[in-house]
């Protein structure tokens, strides 16, 4: 995906162009600024109210890579769903590039915890879904092939999801998001189910993509090391209802190394806040 393709995309995608009015030369693919303003959320579970998020308040600068850590079931996926605009928060507001978020938009793409590929469509069709849904597929067929090549699934364009391994399905779902050139990429444990080797490869790949495309990234992960390899900021949530418990900056240049002493030190401190002192 060259810059020329981004420019084309900017013309085609009115929403992106509109948002970029403030910038002198609208550079599509540039990151989105996100503000989470005092967001609280609860679900109704068997007649009772279940508070999940409580007063979450932080902002993410354009092009920043932020990792979200927290115990299982604390509400991380829920927060990503709210930012994606799939549900409105019970209280508070989410603002993306100074516009309130109230519905999903392809510029804010969410890679789900499960790959959730459409089982009835081939890998190529799955990845093409976003372009097809917006009527852009005819002009941009090549972008689908590019995205597939990027996640090394070029040879599996005609396979059906049931013919993929778990890791391949996860990569296909990543390609499905990337093909839309989002300016905000929400990643819900996208590498959670992969073997450690594929995982490491894709971590490097994610950083490369992020550096090249300049999108803002919000990554939910269970893996502190992964958070520190990828993100420049790590936000740690408490048990449910999730509150922000701690926040760490980590401005080490990329590519980072897992045995970097700074990383190891910070990793110990983060594990400490999570109650897993080593």
């Amino acid at each position, binding site marked *: 995906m060259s810059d020329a393709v981004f420019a084309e995309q900017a013309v085609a995608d009115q929403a992106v162009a509109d948002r970029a009015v403030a910038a002198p030369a609208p550079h599509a693919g540039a990151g989105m600024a996100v503000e989470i303003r005092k967001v609280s959320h609860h679900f109704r579970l068997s007649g009772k109210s279940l508070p999940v998020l409580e007063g979450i308040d932080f902002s993410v600068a354009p092009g920043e890579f932020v990792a979200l850590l927290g115990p299982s079931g604390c509400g991380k996926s829920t927060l990503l769903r709210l930012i994606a605009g*799939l549900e409105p928060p019970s209280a508070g507001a989410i603002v993306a590039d100074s516009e309130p978020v109230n519905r999903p938009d392809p510029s804010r*793409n969410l890679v*789900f915890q499960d790959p959730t590929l*459409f089982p009835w469509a081939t890998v190529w069709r799955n990845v093409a879904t976003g372009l*097809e*849904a917006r009527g852009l597929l005819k002009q941009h067929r090549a972008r689908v092939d590019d995205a597939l090549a990027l996640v090394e699934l070029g040879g599996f364009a005609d396979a059906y999801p049931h*013919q993929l391994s778990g890791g391949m399905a996860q990569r296909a779902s990543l390609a499905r998001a990337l093909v*839309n050139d989002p300016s905000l990429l929400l990643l819900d444990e996208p590498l959670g189910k992969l073997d450690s080797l594929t995982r490491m490869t894709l971590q490097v790949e994610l950083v490369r993509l992020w550096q090249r495309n300049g999108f803002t990234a919000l990554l939910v992960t269970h893996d502190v090391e992964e958070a520190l390899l990828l993100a420049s900021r790590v936000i740690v949530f408490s048990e449910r209802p999730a509150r922000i418990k701690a926040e760490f900056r980590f401005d080490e240049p990329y590519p980072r190394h897992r045995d970097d002493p700074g990383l190891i030190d910070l990793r110990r401190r983060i594990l400490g806040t999570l109650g897993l002192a080593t």
Partner: protein
Amino acid sequence: MTDATETLDGAAAVDAPGLLPGLWRDGLLIALAWGVAAVVTVSLPDVVPWGGGDLFAAITGVGALTFVVLAFAAHRLGRAGEILIHYGPWLIAIGVWLALWELITAKTGWLPKPFFSPPHGLLNVYVNDGQRLLICIGYTLRLWALGFLSGIVVGYAVGVALGWSKRFAYWGMPLLKLIGPVPATAWIPCTFYFFPTTFGASIFIVALASGIPVAILTASGVGSVNRAYYDVGRILGADSRYLIRRVAIPAAMPHVFVGLFMALYYSFAVLVVAEMLGAKYGLGWYIQFQTAYSGYANVYAALLIMAVLCAGIIRLLFVARDRLLKWQQGFI
């Protein structure tokens, strides 16, 4: 597959040049069973004469001889041979069944005329009444095709609407649940009033019988689509139209096919009744007509045709399903 068989044959020929290579033993057993059926038919007299015995014996006899030849040739026939070999045990069973059936009906009279018919009695019907049966098949297929197709198209559209739209489901679902269990035949009085021709009324009965299961299953299919697929679609910028066409409908396809199979059975079951409404021809009409005159052999003959037609159409539906639901192959 063929390659492997050929190599095997070759090896056998080299190792033991004196033995018969690639003999299909089931072929000989089929020949034996069919031969017995032929001999039983010609050598024993009918308790009450049926006619058609000689022709039946000739057919099964020729069949037996053919299988003797095939027993030696089947392994060289490639794909056709493989299919033949696969159905070998069934062909043996058919031969045995024909011989037994001859014995207990025509030859001993344990199951007496006119209530039961030996195989050659059915053959006799096909030979003597073939012309009329062919016309009946044509009429029945026309009625079935018109009724079934219009029924499933309407049923499918209603099902998608019921599964997708809350408001449509609010009004439609209770009505469908009310109408669903009523046998299609119960509508005969008002169909007579609403349809100017009996043919129209017949089509309506068949359409109703096939439309209702398709509507119910399509609705439940569309309604039970994993919400996560809609979330994915919405994230990717899909509008409702796209979500219906590209998510709800394909996701519901497996359910729709269950509905289609049910529709097929129901539509065949009501054909006889639909043709009661004053049809001039048709297998259903033929069955009623012959029942009234105690022509039970003719009834059996027509029933057999219907069964074969239904089985053939089901086979086609399976082919269509395997095509359309290729993506499901992990589950089917």
